[in-house]
């Protein structure tokens, strides 16, 4: 099985360790993993601002790069949602591109849903001594229906305890450009998320989208919380020293 890992622009820039953790997990799951060279960004920033022509350009670029693989796996609910749910809509008026977009959408998976539901082998063989709370990111949860999969995988990690926070399905306030356009509103929202995380007493907050995690980590640190760790689910599942 030829599998493409689409690392996302945010992981490329802000946290390469997530990409390497995903790579290790996918290899352990029995796939032959490729990292297509031309990948840059799925185009979500253009789409969410309302710039359809630019979003279409970048969608076509990604389709060309990714359509030659059996599966495409992305360590992000948000970018997966863009390819699975938005690309076919963006290109619906163009029969040829529309069909290619739909074909790619059907083969594209968010990392935890791929590992839990599609992968041949169980790749989780790590230890983690600590209490974890899980933040459901909006696009993963409401766009792709991902809820069970990350928890199922996390509970396979030896030593890991999961403690749910109240309102774990509440938005963290990131929202891409929203966090910059309406910085003060976004801060107000992420404050509520930080309160919920802190109240669990968990050592680590884990999520599947780096955007949310950078937002949460940035606010926790600004509030003076230096101890709560903020990790991508791939980093926990792959164990330490992934990079």
């Amino acid at each position, binding site marked *: 099985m030829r599998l493409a890992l689409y*690392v996302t*622009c945010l992981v*490329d*820039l*802000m*946290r*390469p*360790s997530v990409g*390497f953790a995903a790579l290790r997990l996918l290899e352990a799951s029995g796939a032959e993993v490729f*990292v297509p*060279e*031309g990948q*840059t*960004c799925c*185009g979500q*920033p*253009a789409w*969410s*601002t*309302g*710039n*359809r022509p*630019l979003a279409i*350009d*970048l969608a076509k*670029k990604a389709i060309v790069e990714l359509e030659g693989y059996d599966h495409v796996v992305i360590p992000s609910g948000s970018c997966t949602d863009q390819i699975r749910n938005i690309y076919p809509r963006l290109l619906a008026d163009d029969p040829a591109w529309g069909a290619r977009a739909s074909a790619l959408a059907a083969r594209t998976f968010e990392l935890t849903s791929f590992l839990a539901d599609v992968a041949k082998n169980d790749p989780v063989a790590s230890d983690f001594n600590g209490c974890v709370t899980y933040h459901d990111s*909006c*696009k993963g949860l*409401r766009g792709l229906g991902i809820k069970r999969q990350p928890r199922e995988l996390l509970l396979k990690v030896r030593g890991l305890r999961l403690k749910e926070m109240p309102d774990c*399905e*509440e*938005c963290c*306030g*990131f*929202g*891409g*450009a*929203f*966090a*910059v*356009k*309406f*910085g*003060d*509103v*976004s*801060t*107000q*929202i*992420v404050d*509520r998320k930080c309160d919920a995380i802190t109240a669990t007493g968990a050592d680590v907050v884990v999520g599947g989208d780096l955007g949310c995690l*950078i*937002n949460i*980590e*940035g*606010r926790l*640190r*600004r509030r003076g919380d230096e101890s709560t760790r*903020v990790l991508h689910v791939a980093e926990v599942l792959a164990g330490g020293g992934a*990079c």
Partner: protein
Amino acid sequence: MALGKHSQAMHFQARAGEKIRNPVLQAALQKARPLFVGKRVKGIASLAEDALDFEQLRTAAKNIRNRTLADLDVWLDIFEARATASGAEVLWARDGAEVSRLVVDIARRHGVTKVAKSKSMLSEEAHLNEALAEAGIRPVETDLGEYIVQLAGETPSHIIAPAVHKTIAEVEALFAKEHGRPLETRTSADIPAMAREARAVLRQHFLSAEMGISGANFLIAETGSAALVTNEGNGRMVTTLPKIHVVITGIEKIVPTLEDLATLMRLLPRSATGQSISNYVSLLTGTKRKGDQDGPEKTVFILVDNGRANLLGSDYQDMLRCIRCGACMNHCPVYFSLGGHAYGWVYPGPMGSVLTPLYTGLENALDLPHASTGCNQCGSVCPVAIPLPDLMHRLREEQHERGLRPWSERLALKAWAWIAGKPALYRWLASRVVRYLNWLADGSGRIQILGLAPAWTAGRDLPVSSSRTFHELYSARKKP
């Protein structure tokens, strides 16, 4: 557009900042949010007691609304014929100004000096209270929340809980002043006593008002009736005691049959307040008949367009399904950070972010379609499955198509997309950006002030964890 002058929606950014810095408002909002959410959860769970499923029910509700909108003119004609046959009068208003003119005309013809109102958001669209006051007619809001808001000289900040932004202390100050009594210290235990106090005042208004004005949650075509859903009983007073009753509602509120109403009523109170049914559900048909104990001698329906017909057949028709339950705002992280007044016009929250630009002009509410994290908490609770984030997104696209986005944003996006289309250049630039961020972080693992995105670092740090991009590290690893 006449409505534009009243809308403050262009000042969303500035108002949002004010609201965030208002600790009294924040306390009121943080108290209300879990109540709304918790009550709806229980209300929806209670559907199981009647062997009903939320998803099935909301598909049925969506279909009823879609079917009605597909032949809206037909259902409105049937409604008009049946309502007229039962003794009511049906008038049509193109916009808010026409609503006010019609109501003032009726009031003048019948020598009305005081109007008792039950809750009507459409009367807010029409600025009816201002028009009545200018004509020398006193409007008295009788919904408790609306009464509080009217005393404060404000507008509702929520469509079903108009005074949700007010604390008990603020309400006590208003009551003491208005009711001419000394100020007392109040806790939530005193709420029933405060409600009784308001009731005693309102009772006099119910008995002396010559005209009652209400909205309608639904119009039923087959019977020519208005359905009114309330919890305080003021709706019944307003619609039965005064000799004239005027119903003001939007043309989209119509449903074909009573059976359709029953389906929608399974969802409306549960989505709004979590109740399986509200305290009062009234079906109002025609005028007082021979032998009736009470009821108006004259009933007038004013059916209002005010922008609604323009949405039929447009990309935004789904919005006309809205049954005004408020669940979208109750589950909106942005609404509960700001309250309703920040949105600047009649409707707040996600439904307002769609309706305000559509009803008052896209160019008069540029921020609202962007005032969303895209979380879709609103769309997933909507009882008639309106894809609110998609509609906000379509408005963003229309802003782009009509050249309403700032040039700086357009240019930045264009430059970024051009670079993202050239992988080698993109890689090189990304590697420079990462080094720059790393230099700024200076070994601390974070950036506290970032000139490129000051709005980000105003409230939080930017964590920096690597001095190389993923692709740099990956290529280096691949090399033997």
